[in-house]
């Protein structure tokens, strides 16, 4: 589904990714762990197409399409979803208006019909119940007045509504208390299907107790330096990044 080969990328003039390769197949859950400054968030932003993140070498394809050649919204329509580490507050645009606009923009780009109001609200009710977001919150401005945990639950909610093929979740677990972590994990587990994949970017093993990864990668110095199964996360927790990435 996602194939990254020898990816080099700069933020401004500073090289951050230095030859990163990764292959994610449908049905798999991958976790990328690594110390601060290893390039984890840069990888997420490069894949989503953020301005200011410049690829200098290498390739990234998504279902055979050259991902790097697409605009950010085209990547979304192709089925890529980025869950933000710091979801943005947008006053004056309600969560529901925003999501419906986004969903229909994606559908139009894919040549599909727009979703009806009734069907949209049906989805909204089902997903918001799982993530414990009430309707009053969803009528407010996007993330406005939301706590850190509510913002992350809102990311998982959007994931459920937009139904992408690949969920790229950037530190979705940071800032969550135990209950919120369980709720968000439930959202991610509900998303899992044989035709979908998840790429979790995280600092901690904690999230991986709830969402079992098939592969764990260690990102350090802009490259994947180690790959293993779920047990690698436990070893990292015990030995630290220095023990593994050195």
């Amino acid at each position, binding site marked *: 589904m996602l194939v990254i080969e020898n990816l080099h990328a700069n933020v401004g003039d500073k090289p951050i990714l230095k030859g990163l390769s990764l292959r994610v197949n449908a049905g798999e859950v991958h976790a990328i762990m690594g110390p601060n400054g290893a390039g984890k968030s840069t990888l997420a932003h490069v894949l989503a197409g953020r301005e200011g993140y410049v690829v200098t070498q290498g390739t990234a394809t998504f279902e055979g399409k050259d991902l790097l050649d697409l605009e*950010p919204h085209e*990547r979304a329509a192709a089925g890529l979803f980025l869950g933000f580490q710091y979801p943005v507050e947008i006053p004056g645009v309600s969560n529901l208006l925003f999501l419906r*606009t*986004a969903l229909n923009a994606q559908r139009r780009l894919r040549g599909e019909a727009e979703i009806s109001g009734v069907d949209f609200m049906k989805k909204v009710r089902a997903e918001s119940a799982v993530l414990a977001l009430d309707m009053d919150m969803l009528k407010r401005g996007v993330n406005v007045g939301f706590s850190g945990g509510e913002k992350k639950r809102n990311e998982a909610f959007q994931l459920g509504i937009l139904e992408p093929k690949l969920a790229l979740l950037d530190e979705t677990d940071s800032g969550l208390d135990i209950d919120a972590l369980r709720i968000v994990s439930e959202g991610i587990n509900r998303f899992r299907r044989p035709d979908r994949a998840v790429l979790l970017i995280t600092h901690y093993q904690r999230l991986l107790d709830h969402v079992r990864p098939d592969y764990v990668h260690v990102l350090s110095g802009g490259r994947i330096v180690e790959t293993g199964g779920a047990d690698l996360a436990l070893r990292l927790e015990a030995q630290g990044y220095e023990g593994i990435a050195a």
Partner: protein
Amino acid sequence: MTALPTRKTEAWRYADLRAVEALWPPPPARLISVREGGAHEEVVRVRDGGIHDFRVELAANSTLRLVILVQSAGYARVAVEAHLHEGAHLDLGGILLGDGDATQEIVTDVRHDKPGASSNQRVRLVLDERATGTYLGRIAVARDAQKSDAEQSARALVLKRTATANLKPELEIFADDVKCAHGCTVGELDKAARFYLQSRGLSRAEADALLTRAFVADALTGLEDSAAREALEAETVAWLEQRS
């Protein structure tokens, strides 16, 4: 005023004086008066430019909700001189949508002549290309106008750095028991918000249109007539869309 204004006249400092000269003398001010205890809603749309003067007289305990939407190519000026009597309330929303070489101005002079009156002004400027948008907002509280409550918020969104925004609040307060709040900001579209919307599937133009629509929305919140509000929203959206 019959003499042609010059740059030295504060209220005309940012005007397009060549255009003013061609329009001089302006038509007499239109009177909007609300009787004691009454309420009125008025929408002023300016599409063809020109100088539009209004004199607002609000009798005791009356309310006026006024929305001004300016969207014109050349020079357009809307000036409002409002007199508030005891317990009167003025809610004024203003939107300037400027592109090309447009020069647009909203000039308000809100006079709390008697005690206990309140005013709330929210003006939003969206400026693109080489447009110039100006808001001069004067609030005058008379000597015995205690318990006056005046709020003023002016925000400009500059879509291109070649556009110009001038925002000037001016408060003249001669009473001592009053509340007067004012704020001005000039900024560009929030890049982080734009990317967030793009990452969810909106094109850059769609994201900018949605953010800009949210930016001007505050100016319309005073309108109780929802059909009028929706029409103004639609007009704003149409302006945003024809530009992308």
